[in-house]
């Protein structure tokens, strides 16, 4: 790795609901300036891992560092894109206001939003192709447009690390391609991107690095070395019997 400090480093993280561990002794490193995917079967703890990194769910043990600093004191370095169904889309708020939220942490909670912040909001809307929608109520948007708004809000934070939870679930193909290219552009600007993802096809063609997760770390490293039949069988377990071919495995992951 050229970059000495990882964008996100997770050490021996364990988290559980009731007594069943959802994450068990997870070690993971996500390199800076790369596009990384967290891949694994349903119930593997992918979303929980992101939330645990941000302190949104209680953890039993483990350390998380962002840019070499404890995660708790480095939240200003992270922009989080939650799952779309986490919010009420009938909420009385416009597209522009949602994106403006991304500026609040740096503007402060009381001070007026400055001209400079408005420019950043407009720029982020432009980047995700939503400029024409700034004054719309969010309930009037399609699924793909909603995801674009969420990403614009994260962009508005101008944080070097983006954590995204299933941004392409239920999104049309056109939006998925547009957003993947957008993320690629952000990576080329030097930002680090970590995405919980379920589509092995696009992991191979768009991502640099992958963490294969199923409660514990199965494998991690450059995509070409991680997303391989042998490791996928270990992650996806019984659903992928030993004789399953690569193609069938890929189909399996697509079907999710």
């Amino acid at each position, binding site marked *: 790795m050229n970059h000495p400090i990882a964008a996100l480093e997770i050490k021996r993280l364990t988290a559980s609901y009731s007594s069943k561990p959802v994450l068990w002794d997870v070690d993971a490193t996500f390199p800076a300036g790369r596009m990384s995917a967290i891949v694994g079967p349903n119930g593997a703890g992918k979303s929980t891992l992101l939330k645990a990194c941000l302190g949104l769910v209680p953890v039993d043990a483990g350390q998380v560092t962002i840019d070499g600093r404890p995660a708790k004191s480095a939240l200003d370095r992270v922009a989080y894109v939650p799952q779309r169904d986490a919010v009420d889309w009938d909420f009385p708020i416009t597209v522009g206001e949602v994106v403006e*939220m991304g500026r609040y942490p740096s503007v402060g909670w009381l001070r007026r939003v400055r001209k400079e912040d408005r420019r950043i909001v407009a720029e982020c809307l432009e980047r995700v192709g939503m400029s024409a929608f700034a004054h719309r109520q969010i309930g009037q948007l399609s699924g793909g447009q909603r995801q674009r708004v969420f990403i614009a809000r994260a962009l508005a934070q101008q944080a070097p690390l983006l954590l995204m939870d299933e941004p392409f679930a239920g999104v049309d193909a056109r939006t998925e391609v547009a957003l993947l290219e957008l993320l690629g552009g952000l990576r080329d600007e030097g930002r680090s991107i970590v995405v919980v993802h379920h589509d092995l096809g696009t992991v191979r063609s768009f991502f640099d690095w992958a963490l294969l997760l199923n409660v514990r770390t199965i494998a991690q490293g450059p995509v070409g070395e991680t997303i391989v039949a042998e490791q996928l069988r270990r992650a996806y377990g019984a659903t992928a019997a030993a004789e399953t071919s690569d193609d069938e495995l890929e189909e399996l992951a697509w079907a999710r």
Partner: protein
Amino acid sequence: MGPLIDLWPLSYTDSVVATGALLLGVVAGVLGTFAVLRGRSLVGDALAHAALPGVCVAFLVTGAKDPATLLAGAACAGIVGAFMMVGIERSTRIKPDAAIGVVLSVFFSLGIVLLTAIAAGDNANQAGLERYLFGQAAGLVEADVNLMAILAAGSLGLVLALFRPLKMTLFDAGYAGATGLPVRALELAMTGFLVVAVVIGLRTVGAILMVAMLVTPAVAARQFVARLAHLLPLAGAVGAFVGVTGALASSRAEVPTGPVIVLVGFTVVLLSVLLAPGRGVAWRAGRLRRERRRALVDGVLLDLEIASHGGPPPTREELALASGRPERTLRRGVGVLHGRGWVKDEGGHLVLTAPGAAAAHELVARREEWSAWLEHGWKLRLPDAREPDPRDVRGSLGAEAADRLAAFRAEATA
């Protein structure tokens, strides 16, 4: 509150009542909005019921009946009730609605038992405590109104100061937490708002029906505005209207205030839910009717166009059979086409006129453009997130994009 009281064109007593109801309406409307948006309206109901035993205990302990003491008791009981609900929700597997039901009924029963015991006792001072059940605006004096004003100013000031964090927590608690906001504390503050609103309204509206004052303004106002920054003041205004109207009407008619306020509030909600532009029931029903009619007319036109290619012009019966539409529905569709001069009747056979045929061709072309978008739209690589209107792909995406879609389609069929 002297100056505000003097502003009303009413007698002094009525002015005091009106001022109190105004403050109560604004505060309950604004603070109740947070509960409604969180889907926690019933927490407000439970807290109002929970306040009743607090009033009784405060009376038993101090023997005094001054509102400040009794409302302090109400606040304490409300806070205990709130913590019980949150505690049950977080530490057991009981669902929130069940926790609300338990807290509401237990506290209210306790309140009724205490109220009965106090009434049976020989304390001459006790008359009037039962007003806290259904509320009575008529008894308000200037001291009560002053207390309400202080609480109102404090809580509304807090809403103003915390507006951004509250908005973020309400809309997306996960994201708010990830930016480092103390989400749990803010959620607790929103529950605290309900306690304040209940304390302000308890004496006027009563424990049983206080929830109406918290919920109706937000529900009515939401029909008209689509931004939180507009919703809060509008809900406050609706609350003020409902409160003042209800309180004055009830004190004139000498009936408890709570029920009158609920009826006024219900009227406002009914009208706004029915008639509001965009979100109202009437509006949406009208839009649905127009959509259906349009789909029918387009469908019949398309059927006629297809039939006219397949042979001699069809009769109504043949067309009904071919399209699978019930005859009555079909007749309605044909009637509209007749009215537009797109179809004429030649000895029982339906024939498209020249403008009718032109309209049918245009419809077919538009449908083809839409299916081309569905199949090939992703190849266009549009620079932004626009999505076409299914009925008018060319108009909504522009001629250039529509031409490219047509080219993709031609390429695919070749």
